[in-house]
């Protein structure tokens, strides 16, 4: 009873959202029970606020204010608008799986293009299918916090992808989240499982259709990279200027596997990408990188936990933030080395470039080390553009803005270069350049 009394207005709004949405959420019986339990867990914790250490710099009680009601099913007009928006985040050759306002839209998606060795189903279909015993397991995660619990309770759809052992996909898979509704929220969750020695490229993009504003996205992606598998994973957050995007990633990497992950945030009023990566098999190679491009009053948060649970793994993290106007960039990165994870090699670097006097960058790189035979380190810097470099370029005839753009591009390049796949690298560079164009 006390819990109910202690609720803030925001949380009461969430309660209402769950109560009203309940009948529309897919799945009955066990699934509904799992949802109810998750919502209870969420209610106990409440919306994360600055007194919760992991959310110190991203106070959702202040930034989200209220939780928007669940978006309705997109109608034909919405789907047409969504189709137009897809162009904004198009990657050459990628097979698209499109979720509009949290609902999978087959007519915009190209499952057939993917070929053999891969199965794609929608989460909604599995949750609703009473014959599937494992359906409520899809809602359980190894790591959880308040926003993941909220996602479990409210999730409407997503895709469940499984790549068979030894399959090398010829085309990238791209999940595109398109928002068409305004002042509504979408809760999505996708599972991607790579079998042994499989190879794949997986892209996730967030984009707004024309006219969509003040929407909220809460997404979760659960990834398994099998033994000896290789995965390139790219995320692009290009939401509307007044949107909220809270995304969680839960990643498990097997033995002798390779994961190359890159996150790019360039849209949204408030965005947070929190990813929890467990290196569960020996001899794996992890590279997690990202850039935040923020302006106006944008708030961009990247939170990363790399858990070295076994020996002989290597991890590299490289983050860059460019913050203009009154933007606020947050990077929190933690490398954990468990007691038996000897011979771990972990390095993390985070750098922020502040372009305006009102910009803010908060960095919190952490090391948590319980094994002795390791080499771990992190570095963090923040500052403005180098005056002497600017002068050098200006003396050679570049205007102030061009000189700045050139230096910013070089600065971002240090992280973008870490993307293993060349076409993805070029795609990200082009997106970054577009952001710089607008600034000019």
């Amino acid at each position: 009873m006390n819990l109910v009394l202690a609720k803030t207005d925001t949380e009461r709004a969430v309660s209402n959202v769950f109560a009203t949405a309940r009948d529309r959420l897919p799945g009955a019986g066990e699934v509904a029970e799992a949802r109810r339990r998750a919502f209870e867990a969420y209610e106990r914790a409440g919306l994360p606020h600055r007194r919760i250490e992991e959310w110190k710099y991203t106070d959702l009680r202040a930034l989200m204010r209220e939780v928007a009601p669940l978006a309705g099913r997109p109608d034909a007009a919405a789907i047409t608008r969504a189709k137009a928006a897809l162009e904004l985040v198009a990657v050459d050759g990628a097979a698209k799986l499109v979720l509009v306002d949290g609902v999978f839209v087959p007519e915009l998606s190209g499952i057939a293009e993917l070929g053999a060795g891969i199965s794609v189903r929608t989460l909604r279909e599995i949750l609703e299918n009473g014959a599937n015993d494992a359906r409520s397991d899809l809602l359980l995660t190894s790591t959880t916090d308040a926003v993941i619990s909220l996602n479990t309770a409210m999730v409407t759809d997503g895709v469940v992808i499984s790549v068979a052992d030894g399959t090398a996909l010829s085309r990238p898979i791209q999940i595109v989240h398109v928002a068409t509704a305004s002042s509504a929220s979408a809760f999505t969750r996708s599972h991607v499982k790579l079998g042994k020695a499989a190879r794949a490229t997986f892209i996730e993009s967030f984009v707004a259709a024309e006219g969509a504003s003040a929407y909220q996205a809460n997404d979760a992606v659960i990834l398994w990279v099998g033994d000896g598998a290789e995965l390139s994973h790219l995320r692009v957050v290009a939401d509307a200027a007044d949107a909220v995007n809270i995304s969680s990633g839960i990643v498990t990497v097997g033995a002798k596997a390779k994961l190359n992950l890159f996150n790019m945030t360039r849209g949204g009023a408030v965005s947070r990408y929190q990813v929890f990566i467990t290196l569960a098999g020996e001899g794996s190679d992890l590279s997690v990188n990202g850039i935040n491009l923020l302006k106006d009053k944008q708030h961009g948060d990247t939170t990363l936990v790399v858990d070295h649970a076994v020996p002989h793994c290597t991890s590299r993290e490289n983050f860059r933030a460019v913050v203009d106007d009154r933007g606020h960039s947050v990077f929190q990165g933690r490398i954990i080395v468990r007691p038996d994870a000897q011979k771990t090699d972990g390095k993390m670097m985070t750098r922020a470039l502040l372009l305006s006097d009102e910009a803010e960058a908060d960095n919190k790189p952490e090391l948590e080390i319980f094994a002795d035979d390791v080499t771990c380190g992190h570095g963090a810097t923040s500052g403005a553009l180098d005056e002497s470099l600017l002068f050098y370029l200006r003396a050679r005839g570049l205007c102030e803005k061009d000189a700045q753009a050139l230096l910013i591009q070089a600065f971002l390049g240090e992280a973008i270069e870490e993307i293993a796949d060349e076409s993805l690298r070029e795609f990200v560079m082009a997106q970054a350049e577009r952001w710089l164009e607008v600034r000019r």
Partner: protein
Amino acid sequence: MPAVQETVDRVRRIDVDQYRYGFETLIESEKAPKGLSEDTVRFISAKKNEPEWMLQWRLEAYRRWLTMREPTWARVDYPKIDYQEIYYYAAPKPKKQVNSLDEIDPEILKTYEKLGIPLREVAMLEGIEPRVGETDPVKSKIAVDAVFDSVSVATTFKEELKKAGVIFMPISEAIREHPELVQKYLGSVVPTSDNFFATLNSAVFSDGSFVYVPPGVRCPMELSTYFRINERNTGQFERTLIIADKGSYVSYLEGCTAPQRDENQLHAAVVELVALDDAEIKYSTVQNWYPGNSEGLGGIYNFVTKRGDCRGRNSKISWTQVETGSAITWKYPSCILRGDNSRGEFYSIAISNGFQQVDSGTKMLHLGKNTSSRIISKGIAAGKSQNTYRGLVTAHRKATGARNFTACDSLLIGDKCGAHTVPYIEAKNSSATFEHEATTSKISEDVLFYCTQRGLSEEEAVGLVVNGFVKDVLQQLPMEFAVEAQKLISISLEGSVG
């Protein structure tokens, strides 16, 4: 070194059981009744003959403390402290008025002798002409304000300091003799509402040191205090206040040892530093309180709030610490860089062995223009200890031109210990330039091989590497302390090398 059984065995045999300073002095002492209440606060205040305003100040802190909760964010784990099971005041029973060192309880003097504190020697130096060939005593002089449990027993060098205009006395005396200074500065850096332990200290602090250096004066000697917890089940709550007025300079040394105990003892000190325009304060600490035995029993709980306020322009505060003792260390000496062009420094060596838990670091708050700070932290974890660096560097929106450099390195000896780094770096304006780097590793096998191949034993080789590892910080210590600190480091790591 791979974690061979031999290493593990040696770590287990570590020196914690043979704690050098684990002896107990049997002298009568006068205690306040056990537990904490308004009466305890009044008792302490009355014992100290304090003026009414001081009592009110304490009571206000006590009432505030009742509403506060013990912080749990640090990476330390200890059984819940029962604050009603602690004696908040213990003073050696005054036998008579002491006029000279000779009149002091010989038991107490003997204790200091065992600690190697040059109290007697210093006293002699003061009265006796130096022999031919001896170095100029002025250069090697240290003024000692010894705090034995809670009461300052003797203060040497008072005369010479008085000549320079420097006030150096127990804070209880300062409250009576210089109320205007104490009232102005006490609690101005660490307010009574600051944090759980600082508030507790504000309510029940019994003694500590007070230093005031007048404008333009360079304090003629290093000031020094030795703290020692002696009485069983007493918490020690010192309060230190150092004010460096315009253009002055003072270097203050603090050294700590405590006798072996089975019950954990609480220590919650507060240190406040105020540096006005162009002033500089250098504060050095060597802490080797009882860390607990090889089973992890006993040891001091050290919850300290240390903060310096660079209030004036071009002021500078520098913290240097060598932390080798205590079962739990919770300590974050900080600098508030308020004045334009002010500078803060933090040099730290934190060594943990046995079952020790260290959560220490610093805060650099850049508020003024063109302020700069430097953090060098060296953590060495051995045995089954946990060693955490936790630090904050922040530049306010108006702190243009703020500059920080941070390097925190950790060295792991043995595979049962942990080393953690938790830095917070907050830049709120574009002209703030922050650099931070941290590394964690064990001693490289190549380096060890190189040394042993040239005839050094493994222990010597590790000693060499460790010494090199901490050199940046040791160099910052005043000469007298550097020698003691080096000795301490080798003692605390003895046997941890395989």
